[in-house]
């Protein structure tokens, strides 16, 4: 078991996990602001961090991934960093924020995904700092002592006061129920996707339970039990609150632990798409490859050259006798050359094309 682990990745993941723990310690003002009730969540989160970083590091070590990773940062820091940042920012909003590439594949597909994505990321943004003790709320001491004044609540981040709001105000309503809003977004998104996965023949044929349905079920369970927690408190006078709390904690911790292994890892992988875009953009500046068969440009020369290195590292050798490579051909060129070789082979055999 230990032997099969990737050493480099293990070290990086351990370091990052230690860093997270340290940040928790200091971010919560030496655990002053840490809520001990969230200890289970904290462990889950730290494990998730460990797992994600471990897997990410293993992933990066694969030749094709490393090539992209390396090139992205090379390009990023060579030349105009600001222009790259601007491009990165734009792409981040479009592709990570709005997932615009999903839209052309269908409107409902995009709506469903966007709702889930926005719900989840908002929830992460709230729960991680809460769990780490980085965010906490206090009553404004002055207002609480003075019965005449309106009571004010203060939100703190890393121990610093960020803003304050009136108790019972609209902002208070939004803030205290933020996770409920996230839940509703996720539930709608999940239902849209569930419907697709249960009715569309193409999806039914290719999906797996653990890969495609379980993640949806998990998200649904988290959202419903989370909503249950607040509505139980508000409308059912806290009946079975403990049960709700435990179920919610279990589903969330399962979710966290599973991030590195299952479908949710794609959330972590997705920004690599921007790397691929930068790679293409930079490659185009450097020049295009022309297919020797079709005579048309088909990819960046950088891409083809890098692929030759990557395939070699992976144990594939497409070099031809004349010193060129099969990879110099465009996809159309490759198909045509195959067909020409096939025709030649057929013709050489007495010209028989049939039978």
């Amino acid at each position, binding site marked *: 078991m230990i032997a099969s682990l990737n050493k480099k990745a293990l070290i990086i993941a351990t370091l990052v996990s230690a860093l997270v723990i340290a940040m928790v310690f200091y971010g919560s003002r030496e655990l002053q602001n840490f809520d001990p009730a969230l200890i289970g969540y904290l462990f889950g989160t730290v494990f998730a961090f460990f797992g994600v970083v471990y897997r990410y590091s293993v992933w990066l070590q694969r030749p094709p991934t490393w090539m992209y990773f390396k090139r992205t940062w090379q390009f990023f820091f060579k030349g105009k960093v600001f222009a790259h940042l601007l491009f990165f920012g734009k792409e981040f909003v479009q592709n990570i924020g709005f997932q615009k590439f999903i839209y*052309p*594949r269908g*409107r409902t*597909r995009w709506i469903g995904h966007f709702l889930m994505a926005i719900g989840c990321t908002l929830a992460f943004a709230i729960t991680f700092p809460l769990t780490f003790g980085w965010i906490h709320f206090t009553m404004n001491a002055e207002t609480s002592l003075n019965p005449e004044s309106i009571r004010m609540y203060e939100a703190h981040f890393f121990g610093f006061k960020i803003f304050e709001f009136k108790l019972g105000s609209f902002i208070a309503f939004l803030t205290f129920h933020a996770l409920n809003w996230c839940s509703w977004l996720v539930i709608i998104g999940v239902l849209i996707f569930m419907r697709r996965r249960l009715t569309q023949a193409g999806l039914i044929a290719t999906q797996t339970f653990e890969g495609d349905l379980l993640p949806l079920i998990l998200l649904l369970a988290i959202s419903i039990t989370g909503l249950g927690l607040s509505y139980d408190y508000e409308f059912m006078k806290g009946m079975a609150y403990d049960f709700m709390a435990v179920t919610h904690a279990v589903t969330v911790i399962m979710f966290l632990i599973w991030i590195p292994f299952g479908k949710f890892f794609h959330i972590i992988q997705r920004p690599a798409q921007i790397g691929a875009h930068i790679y293409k953009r930079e490659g185009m500046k450097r020049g295009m490859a022309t297919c020797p068969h079709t005579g048309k440009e088909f990819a960046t020369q950088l891409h083809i050259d890098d692929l030759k290195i990557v395939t070699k590292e992976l144990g594939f050798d497409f070099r031809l006798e004349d010193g060129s490579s099969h990879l110099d051909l465009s996809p159309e060129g490759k198909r045509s050359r195959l067909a020409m070789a096939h025709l030649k082979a057929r013709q050489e055999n007495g010209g028989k*094309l*049939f*039978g």
Partner: protein
Amino acid sequence: MARLPVSPEKLIEQFGPHRNYPPQEGFVGRDEPDEIVNTHCCFCGMQCGIKLLVKKNHVVGFEPWMEFPFNEGRLCPKGVQRYMQNNHPDRLLQPIQRQEGVGFQNTSWDEAMEKTVSEIKRIQASYGNDAFSILSGVSLSNEKSYLMGKFARVAVKTANLDYNGRLCMVSAGAGNKKAFGLDRISNNFQDLERAEVIMISGANVSETFPTLTHWIWRARDYGAKLIVVDPRVIPLARTADLHLAIRPGTDSALYGAMLKYLADHDMLDHDFIENYTTGFEQTLEAVKDYTLEWAEEVTGIEKQKIELASQWWGKAATSFLLHARGIEHHSKGVDNVVGCINLVLATGRIGKPYCGYGTITGQGNGQGGREHGHKCDQLPGNRDITNPEHRKYIADVWGIDEKDMPGKGLTAYELIEAIHRGEVKGLLSICFNPLVSLPNNNYVREALEKLEFYVCIDFFMNETSRHADIILPGSLHEEEEGTVTTAEGRVVRIKRAVDPPGQARTDTSIILELAKRLGAEDKFTYNSSEDIFNELRVASKGGTADYFGITYKKIEDNMGVFWPCPTLDHPGTPRLWEDKKFATADGKAHFNAAAYRPPGEVTDEEYPVVMTTGRVVSQYLSGTQTRRIGKLVDLYPEPKLEIHPELAAKYGIGQDEMVRVSTRRGSDEFPANIVETIRKDTVFLPYHWPGKKSANQFTPGTLDPVSKIPEFKVCACKLEPLGIKSPPSTDSQAFASV
């Protein structure tokens, strides 16, 4: 008044053609259809079996019909996309009438019918019965084809009824009747499988009948030699054992020379010629001077190749000869056809297993539609309208006095000429788009503009019906029960999968209503398509195309029945002439002399290049349907001028550059596609597009003297390079060109 009420652009905006694509995430409910309907493709003469998936009265997809014996699930791109003609935004949902300066406005069925009937009556009262004409089409089922013939003669009482088969199979029909006394392919296509030599002449099988390729390839798997005669290296010709790249318009010279070669080298079936045929001597006499050298000179094919083809044909034990529009669309289409038949008869290879001959019928119901009487000279059962006995028999079936039955009328193109001359004033058209499909279409447009009244029955507004006064929204193939007869002579069942949408009606109900309003209700009392078919059975009884023994049930039980099928216990006739008793008066097959004569228009100094026209795989006929199906349009977005690199170099034309093409009839610009797969002296344009992108603005209205088919396949043109690159095809919008 048949000028366009507003600009064509405005009509296109409202009525299309628009390209229909499936919804991005697929049709809702396709996975769980309400119904799966076994029917046929609506396009070519193969009539491939296909299953349509129906959800809530919409066709939402297809599934291959693996059991149907001809195609066993196989389809061409048009067949795969055929279901996209359903749910189409351009579909006419209500009767509309022309409004000058406005376009077309909705009207009620009652008003539209009333106007139509009163105009028919007015025109006939003022100018005579024959001044109102009808143009029909063979995308119609057998039932509707029969009904149109009866409607014209009994309800409208006009002689001037013809159909778009006039641009399709009439040369073959005439040639076959001359030779065999009957007009049908001699064998079903399964007989191709073990033919030793297959000769395919003027038939771009791989693009116009792709599913037929299977049977040819099967034969080649068994070692058959394939001879392809075509001015271009069509996909079928690329791998053929012998490709005869013939100069357009010289086909009969090739067959004449081959016949002479067979005779000179005694590769004849003397027993067959002597006992079962007539006319061999005269036929041979007509070609006595047709040496290989002469043939090479005329046809442009090396004599060694002609010799080889003759030897293969002469020595084969089994063979199949197929031809299509490539040899039929000529001012000597019938000569070309009999030239082919002469080769078949000389070797006696007919009426036996794997020995076949026939034309590959082009249109969906090109076979059945040309048998049951919506042709100007014909009555049901492929009877002759000038034959007193035939007239009497049909008059009795119809319950009319023989004297009241109109005689022979004008053929399709002659009808257009008569309209142009002002002799014919009114027109009813159905399933016909002459502005795209007839030659010299600028002339056709002039004719249409002279009509006093034009009513069209169709499901989409096509280029021609923009000129109409009234358009009655009819039905699609999948919206009515019926039968069609495939190119093999197999009668198959077309099933109603959905009902016509909106206020659209079935074509049959429209015709019946018109007949009623014209005062012939008692002659048109049918409750179903099957009723019409049962009358057709009786009407065809005793004719050469005898359907009497065919019933709906029998067709369904056997997945088709081959006519002739004279009695209810008759199994049908997949292979003709096995008894060597031909349907001619003397019971013998007839050789027909076919001396070579040049095409109607030959090249000269002013117009030095030969032009020929044809089809592409993704489009069907005038494109009323296929130019509206997005994915088919995208496969071949615009017509390109195919030209050999040597000819292109002579004129300084570069790849994808625009070329001005001119003939004596029209002139327009097309992008060049420079390819070595065409003769050096010939250019090619496919014809499915309208307006500026139309190939038929160039083709001449020269007709075959017998069949009256126009000469689409050869004319003289000149080329002028414009020296500019053509814009990308995808931007061309040729599908909706004006």
